């Protein structure tokens, strides 16, 4: 500092030179921090940002024309499979989000009550935390195949009801996965729900535990019923956690791939499987697969923006 002062007295350095000095000084003071953060920055630039830019470029390119064409987008939007895949993706994503949040909240509410054996139940519920998506698919195949357990259980249930005099009920086995239509999409959504249930439970449990007991005590003193406690205290205070769960999960829900591949691969396409089909041999088309992946990104962005515009604005300020 002192040297800087005398320098200005004697001869003012050119502004450019001073800027360079300041920059050099800043680098010298922060060598340690820069060294620590550089590997991560480089990695993200080289293997995340650069590929994303590549894919954008590819999506606007075509084999003979090079960059600057909408051919790939035109191609995929003309394809009925792709349009079908887009609709399916949105249906599955919304369906699984609703299921996940509903069931996740229900389980978290149960675990937030003190009861004997809660620790054990909590352990049990967390065990499938890391179950691979592909395994989730395999398990659902066991359950939802024509000769699977879903039909078996429903059949048992129907037989039980059939025992009641005057009622006749018979369950005919249906094929859930290869049937196509809503049953198949439903199966995919169920599989997704099961896979992420522990995570959702953890998130909502964190939310519930963040609500201080005295808020409930205040509600009790004010004479709130259980339902009012839930609707007027718990839910509003959980909104930040809903937002987090929704945004985290929505991104994944739209990107659904493995489950759709395993459970609906033959009959109901989603955008993920469409991209894989275009990219992998025998099609091996980088351009249309890139375009489809950009469309998928756009869908995710639209959802998040809509959510933030219309839902998160009700967020309780804390």
């Amino acid at each position, binding site marked *: 500092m002192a040297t800087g002062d005398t320098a200005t007295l004697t001869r003012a350095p050119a502004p450019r030179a001073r800027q360079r000095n300041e920059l050099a000084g800043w680098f010298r003071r922060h060598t*340690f*921090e820069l060294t*620590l953060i550089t*590997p991560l920055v480089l*990695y993200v630039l080289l*293997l*995340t940002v650069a*590929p*994303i830019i*590549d*894919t954008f470029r*590819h999506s606007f390119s075509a084999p003979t024309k090079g960059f600057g064409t909408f051919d790939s987008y035109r191609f995929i939007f003309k394809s009925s499979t792709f349009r079908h895949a887009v609709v399916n993706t949105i249906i599955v994503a919304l369906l699984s989000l609703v299921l996940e949040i509903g069931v996740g909240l*229900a*389980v978290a509410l*149960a675990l937030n009550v003190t*009861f004997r054996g809660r620790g054990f*139940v909590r*352990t*049990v*519920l967390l*065990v*499938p*935390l*890391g*179950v*691979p998506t*592909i*395994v*989730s698919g395999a*398990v659902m195949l*066991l*359950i939802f195949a024509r*000769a*699977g357990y879903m039909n078996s259980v429903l059949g*048992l249930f129907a037989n039980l009801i059939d025992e009641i005099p005057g009622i006749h009920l018979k369950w005919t*086995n249906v094929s859930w996965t290869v049937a196509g239509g809503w049953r198949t999409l439903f199966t995919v959504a169920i599989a997704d729900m*099961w896979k992420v*249930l522990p*995570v959702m439970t*953890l998130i909502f*449990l*964190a*939310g519930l*535990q963040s609500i201080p007991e005295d808020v409930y005590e205040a509600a009790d003193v004010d*004479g709130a*019923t*259980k339902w009012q406690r839930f609707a007027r205290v718990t839910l509003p205070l959980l909104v*930040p956690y809903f937002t987090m769960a929704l945004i985290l999960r929505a*991104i994944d829900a739209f*990107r659904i*791939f*493995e489950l759709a591949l*395993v459970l609906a691969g033959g009959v109901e396409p989603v955008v993920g499987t469409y991209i*894989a089909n275009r*990219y*992998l041999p025998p099609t091996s088309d980088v351009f249309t*697969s890139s375009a489809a992946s*950009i469309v*998928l*990104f756009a869908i995710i962005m639209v959802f998040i923006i809509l959510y933030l515009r219309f839902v998160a604005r009700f967020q309780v300020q804390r």
Partner: protein
Amino acid sequence: MSITAIPRTRRDPLEAPLRVTFPFWVIGSALIVIFPLYLLFMVSFAPGSAVFGERPQLVVTNFTLRWWKDAFESAGLISPLIKSLVVASVTTALAIVIAAPAAYVISRLRPAIRYTVVIGLLVTRMFPEFTIGISVATRFAGWHLLDTYIGLILAHLIGSLPFIAWILVGTFETIPIDLEEAAQIDGASRLGTLVRVVFPIAAGGIAVASLFVWLYSWNEFLYARLLTTNQLTLPLKVFQAIDRGSTQSMATVAAILTLPILLVVYFLQRYLRPGALTGAVKG
């Protein structure tokens, strides 16, 4: 002195139904979660006759180890197992080495900048894996990284690094700067402060984060699918079994893939505090 009697509030209409249904609620939750896993392992030990036909059995008494023997002997399971293990472990180690120091620096940035950086990291996650993956696969093909361990490790780091950095920023933020200052006054260098004070205190958070990275890599399917032609990983092996194996061999390979996870999660679940995932929600 007289106190006006407060009339007792009317009975809560939800009280009784809740009390009655609560056990079913809990048991139902547990069943939804655990029953499919039970099925998976049960089928992998069941004779074929028991789980096929109009009414597959829910409980099997005559177990068989046939499918597990088959899986290890005939299906070429060892090499995928090794590949998955090595890739997951190396990915985890590299992810921590790269992300932990960076996360520390990010956690000590001014709040506005820190927030921007963290959001930036999360934005990379908004892109479909395919958007990144197909370009990466195309590049890796050019660099002869298909079907290699290193190629898959590099690919798995793409998803892991932002995630682990995000979690660790949350962990480091909770460590008071006082402690670093105390260490510096005690005579530690910047690096010494990091290695001897900050990282040990954050050990719990680092362990949880690396567990998640390990699980992610162990389970990862999409990059593996794009970067593999014949050196399968375990998840690809499961897919192969789904595609062309029997129900039992599918269940068995899936069970083999799942078993280490169940063990890892079971032993580490006491560290899985609800807050572990949600550090970014509050404040």
